[in-house]
């Protein structure tokens, strides 16, 4: 049966070439589309996680919803001691965030001030590498402040300038100080660059009476894909009803939702494309099979079962699909690999999508063999489905009627 199918594909050249070319094109486009979509999502996610948000963060249960000093983590060390024993955790750091008013000589702006551990942040986030001017903090930075570029612009500050801060300490007392601008960062995330500033944790604790307290503890994992598993482990280890441990999927819910919506729209447009390809292949197959009704009638008459006819059509489409996929997959995989290493540059895209975590005009393709294989599997399935209607059409004829078909 396979031999007959092979000979049929060589004999009916028009149909074979059309089907093979359409399958070839759809395989390449399908793989590239998914690769680009996954690549851009991965880049957005990676950028956002790298900048500031951890893979997992631990909060007091009411901190994120209610906020305020009473919902700070009161004994950060007890938690970090437990985290140190979890293998999958690569690094962690306590962060204390508060909000207050910054004033330069002429301008004022409300903004976040966070006390961070500079040496740990170098591992956990890209705050240090986002340096635009001046220098990043160190443990002995004293009253040095590291401020977002947009906030600096708003306050009309320059490196070495002083900026006054007024806020409230952890015990709700009045907290005020004058910081010296030592460094300016630019992550590309507009909101973050215009509303965040950092001082070293040791200085911050003195000012805010924040010893051993934290707004949250941020955690970097050895493998981001293990976030859910490790998070369950952390919840178990903490065993404290007043604490919650959240993965990046919850922390960056809006980004995840945006990526999901983007994926849905992507899949819808891709589905429409694949449906068109599917119908074109099916129609070509149908036209070809319609011209072979008599042939199938003869085959049925001399003893080929309906199952054999289906097998024959299956082999024919399998041969054509395989030829196309064998040619298309390495080409598509190479393109994905190439643009994974040398991302596509679209000028202005970072500016356009800055609110969604796009910090670069470079969009890398995702290169993942598993994804490529499932894309190929989808192409095969669509091609196999495309023979069903022609098959049912053939079987709507009695064998003897089919042998007389003109």
């Amino acid at each position, binding site marked *: 049966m396979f031999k007959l199918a092979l000979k049929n594909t060589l004999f009916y050249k028009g149909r074979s070439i059309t089907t093979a070319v359409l399958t070839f094109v759809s395989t390449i486009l399908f793989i590239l589309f998914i690769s680009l979509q996954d690549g851009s999502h991965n880049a957005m996610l990676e950028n956002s996680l790298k900048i500031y948000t951890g893979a997992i963060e631990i909060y007091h249960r009411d901190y994120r919803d209610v906020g305020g000093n009473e919902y700070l983590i009161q004994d950060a060390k007890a938690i970090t001691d437990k985290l140190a024993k979890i293998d999958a955790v690569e690094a962690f750091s306590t962060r204390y965030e508060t909000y207050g008013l910054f004033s330069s000589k002429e301008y004022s702006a409300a903004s976040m001030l966070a006390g961070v551990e500079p040496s740990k942040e170098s591992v956990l986030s890209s705050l240090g590498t986002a340096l635009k001017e001046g220098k990043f903090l160190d443990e002995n930075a004293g009253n040095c402040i590291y401020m977002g570029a947009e906030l600096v612009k708003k306050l009309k500050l320059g490196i070495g300038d002083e900026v006054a801060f007024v806020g409230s300490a952890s015990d709700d007392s009045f907290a005020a100080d004058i910081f010296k601008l030592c460094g300016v960062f630019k992550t590309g995330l507009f909101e973050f660059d215009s509303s965040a500033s950092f001082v070293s944790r040791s200085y911050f604790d003195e000012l805010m009476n924040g010893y051993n307290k934290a707004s949250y503890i941020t955690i970097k994992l050895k493998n981001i894909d293990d976030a859910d598993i490790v998070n369950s482990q952390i919840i178990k280890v903490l065993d404290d009803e007043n604490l919650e441990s959240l993965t990046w999927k919850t922390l960056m819910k809006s980004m995840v939702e945006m990526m999901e919506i983007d994926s849905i729209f992507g899949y819808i447009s891709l589905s429409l494309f694949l449906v068109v390809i599917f119908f074109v292949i099916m129609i070509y197959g149908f036209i070809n099979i319609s011209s072979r009704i008599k042939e199938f009638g003869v085959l049925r008459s*001399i003893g*080929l079962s*309906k199952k054999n006819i289906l097998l024959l059509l299956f082999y024919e489409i399998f041969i054509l699909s395989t030829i196309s996929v064998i040619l298309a997959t390495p080409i598509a995989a190479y393109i994905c690999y190439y643009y994974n290493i040398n991302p596509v540059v679209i000028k202005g895209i970072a500016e356009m999508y800055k609110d969604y975590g796009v910090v670069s005009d470079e969009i890398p393709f995702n290169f993942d063999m598993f994804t490529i294989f499932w894309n190929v599997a989808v192409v095969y399935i669509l091609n196999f489905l495309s023979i069903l209607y022609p098959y049912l059409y053939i079987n709507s004829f009695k064998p003897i009627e089919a042998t007389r078909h003109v």
Partner: protein
Amino acid sequence: MIKLQGVNKYFFRGEPREVHALRDIILTIEEGEFTLFSGASGCGKTTLLNVIGALDSCESGKIYLDEKEISSLDEDARTTLRLNELGFVFQAYNLIPVLSVEENIGFIMRLRGFSDEEIRRRVLEVATLLKIEDKLKSLPNTLSGGQQQRVAVARAVAAKPKIILADEPTANLDSNNSQILMSMMRELNEKEGVSILFASHDELILKSVRRVITLNDGAIIDDYKQ
């Protein structure tokens, strides 16, 4: 071997254009017969051949093949029956265009699961009998009409069916080729013992067969041996 009991067949049943294609056919065909269903166009001879060959169903009556009732079989069972017990020769040869003569002849044997060696030996045997052994590697469309029909006969006979049903096998052939074909089919009938039933109004076939069953308007009006 084949027994028909009160077989009736209609086309367009219940419609104004209803045709009573076979009327109360009662018939017995013994093993090894070389028989012709004859009659004018539209008399029902091809329909009778198709009903016997499990290519078509009948509305009433029973058909037995070797005591086994075959008229009530479903489509799948009829397909299996056609594959294992029957061989067909069509007016328009109906060879598989992409397969060589050798592959066409061995096609049914392959479907029935014969070994490669059995197929090779049998294909050569019937091809020699039908004098097409030098065409085994050719494609059907490179052969003359007479040669193609001999390939069709070889395909029908190769898997050793009990009966071969031949519908107007000489209609597309000239008289010389028709004569050659009929003498070869008679030889096959005698050497292989296979029953061959023809539906035709060709005088040449009429002269070649041993039994003639004449139909008119769907009914048997004459049945004689010669």
